[in-house]
């Protein structure tokens, strides 16, 4: 670390990136960069690309489900679409997007010159394009890509899986490696590089939520790596971890997977909580209500997330005592989450609120994420879950927490920080159009799914009984409106970067924190001298 500090200090503070001439220079600059802002940008563009790719897959699914019967794709391809859509949205969109934001924001928020391990940072990012190339290549293999859902349940993923599954396994290994290294870097940065005076309880909420998330990641990604390694061994090395014929147990896979899988959903949502906790105070012009409680709530959500995993497996025949235990621990998570929602609402209460695009997305987050939380509570009830398990109700539930929840928080964060990152103002009118089209269409898409699920429509099927037609049509129409509205977002971001109006300081009058003391855009190397924190 002392070496990298010395390196930065030796340079002129305001020089830009070292970029050579032509295409080669461009490639070299981005391939070898160790600057946290550059790497953040790379992560964010990767996430943007994957977002449209996985979104297009979702539209294939919704097009097929517009009417009963098989219209466009065969069932095997349909299953590949659901699998890939899930895997890419999780590992290719939400996680890289938040890692990108962590790269951009955390050093600026805590007054650090860069990430603690800049070269590791470069490697963490550059593993990802290769991992996704590997994953996407499976679509072109003979026998097709993985078709067993993103949860890759054995024996679907071992005995009955297409040959390309091995590519998926190695791709998951690479993504895991990337996010483990990214997390180690984030923890090292937060714990070691804070500016003098920035003690833990003065850190911005986004930094806090990322610290917890990074700890979750280093605890669970190795477990996922273990699970897929066991899959690989079962497929090729004659072991039978998950094969009942050899004394193994397919249910074991579900336990190992969900031991990773449940904390994983908090990996996705905790940074979103952090973003919302930054945006709402800014546009309410009040400090965050109950900062300490927010921190403790985040820690307790993370701790609880390790002892709830079997609520994904209520119908596998686990004993009654275990069902009760996992039901109660799951419902307990509603308490810290409720504290968070209460604090966001209290922050807005009697605030001098204005409704710029980031704030609109943040408010929509609070409303719609809470709906997703409530359906989660319904699913946590053992007797009710016996009816809801593997229906569209589950699909509705997790899309409510992930789309108007996590994805909306990513939009809020992008609109909020884009002027800081680029020094240019995005088009507010276009941003509002993006918001209103998204918030309406997201409800048209996902709300009917709850009714479909309650009426008994199973998830992951390309065809369905006639009585489900109307709600499916509504959902598909909503999905296409939602999908195409996102082009407004893409256009707005590109337009801002290339031709946006220069932003005048302060970017947001209500924004506080170290990153806002820097110019917009911030110098390529910021905080080479640690700032003084009161």
């Amino acid at each position, binding site marked *: *670390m*002392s070496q990298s500090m010395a390196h930065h200090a030796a340079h002129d503070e305001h020089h830009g990136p070292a970029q050579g001439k032509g295409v080669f220079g461009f490639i070299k600059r981005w391939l070898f960069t160790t600057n946290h802002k550059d790497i953040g940008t790379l992560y964010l563009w990767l996430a943007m690309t994957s977002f449209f790719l996985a979104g297009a897959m979702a539209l294939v699914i919704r097009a097929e489900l517009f009417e009963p019967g098989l219209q466009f794709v065969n069932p095997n391809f349909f299953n590949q679409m659901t699998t890939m859509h899930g895997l890419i949205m999780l590992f290719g969109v939400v996680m890289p997007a938040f890692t990108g934001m962590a790269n951009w924001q955390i050093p600026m928020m805590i007054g650090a010159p860069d990430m*603690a*391990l800049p070269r590791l940072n470069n490697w963490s990012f550059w593993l990802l394009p290769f991992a996704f190339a590997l994953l996407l290549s499976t679509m072109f293999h003979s026998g097709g890509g993985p078709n067993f859902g993103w949860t890759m349940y054995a024996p679907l993923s071992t*005995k009955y899986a297409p040959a390309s599954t091995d590519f998926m396994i190695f791709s998951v290994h690479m993504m895991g490696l990337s996010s*483990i290294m990214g*997390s*180690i870097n984030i*923890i*090292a940065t937060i*714990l*070691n590089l804070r500016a003098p005076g920035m003690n833990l309880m003065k850190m911005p909420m986004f930094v806090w939520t990322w610290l917890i998330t990074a700890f979750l990641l*280093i*605890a*669970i*990604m*190795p*477990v*996922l*790596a*273990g*699970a897929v390694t*066991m899959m690989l061994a079962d497929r090729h090395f004659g072991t*039978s*971890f998950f*094969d*009942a*014929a*050899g*004394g193994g*147990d397919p*249910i*074991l896979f579900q*336990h*190992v997977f969900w*031991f*990773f899988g449940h904390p994983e959903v908090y990996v996705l949502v905790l940074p979103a909580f952090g973003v919302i906790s930054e945006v709402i105070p800014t546009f309410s012009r009040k400090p965050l209500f109950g900062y300490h409680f927010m921190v403790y709530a985040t820690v307790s959500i993370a701790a609880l997330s390790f002892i709830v995993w079997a609520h994904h497996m209520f119908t596998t*025949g*686990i*004993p009654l005592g275990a069902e009760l235990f996992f039901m109660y621990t799951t419902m307990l998570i509603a308490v810290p989450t409720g504290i968070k929602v209460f604090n966001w609402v209290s922050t807005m209460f009697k605030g001098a609120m204005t409704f710029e695009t980031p704030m609109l997305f943040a408010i929509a987050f609070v409303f719609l994420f809470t709906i997703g939380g409530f359906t989660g509570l319904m699913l946590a009830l053992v007797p009710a879950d016996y009816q809801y398990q593997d229906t569209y109700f589950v699909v509705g539930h997790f899309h409510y927490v992930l789309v108007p929840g996590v994805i909306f928080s990513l939009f809020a964060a992008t609109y909020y920080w884009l002027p800081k990152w680029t020094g240019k103002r995005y088009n507010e009118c276009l941003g509002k159009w993006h918001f209103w089209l998204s918030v309406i269409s997201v409800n048209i898409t996902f709300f009917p799914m709850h009714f479909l699920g309650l009426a008994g429509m199973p998830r992951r099927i390309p065809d369905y009984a006639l009585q489900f037609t109307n709600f499916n049509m509504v959902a598909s129409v909503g999905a296409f409106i939602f999908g195409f509205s996102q082009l407004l977002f893409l256009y707005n971001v590109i337009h801002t970067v290339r031709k946006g109006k220069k932003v005048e300081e302060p970017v947001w009058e209500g924004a506080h924190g170290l990153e806002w003391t820097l110019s917009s855009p911030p110098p390529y190397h910021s905080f080479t001298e640690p700032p003084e924190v009161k």
Partner: protein
Amino acid sequence: MSMSKQTRLVSLLFGVVVFMFGFGFALVPIYNSLCKTLGINGKVTQDNSQAASGVDMSREVTVEFVATNSAAVPWAFYPNVTKVKLHPGESTRLSFYAENKTNFPMTVQAIPSVTPGLAAKYIKKTECFCFARQTLKGHEAMDMPLIFHLDPALPSKISTVTLAYTLFDVTGR
């Protein structure tokens, strides 16, 4: 030279990663021993020391038999009786037909599984072909015996129990 704060922290975090990778694999024996101790998940313990403690004539339980081969075992394998009704405590003897369809001797191990899982610990086997490995020469056939009874303590809400065997190739192991 003493380690810097940074190196110490990163090594610690790396240690956590390695530990959790190991923990993922440790879940396998933890899971198996938990299932065994608690008698859940259909893993039959081959403890046949207890004798039947009286027969419960008040109810009858249907026991169904299922036989499957793993992909590497080209044998004919099926139960000679697919279903019996018996009173808990009542002992019964039946057999599974097995025939080695290959030209060479093979050794197999039968792995039992019980549905519902909670019934597993109430199935008491006195004799079972699954207790030992079975070797058949090429094209040889035999009826493999199974003697068992249901423990009268079997919860009364369970009226059907399915006993499944899968043959697994252990030749040369």
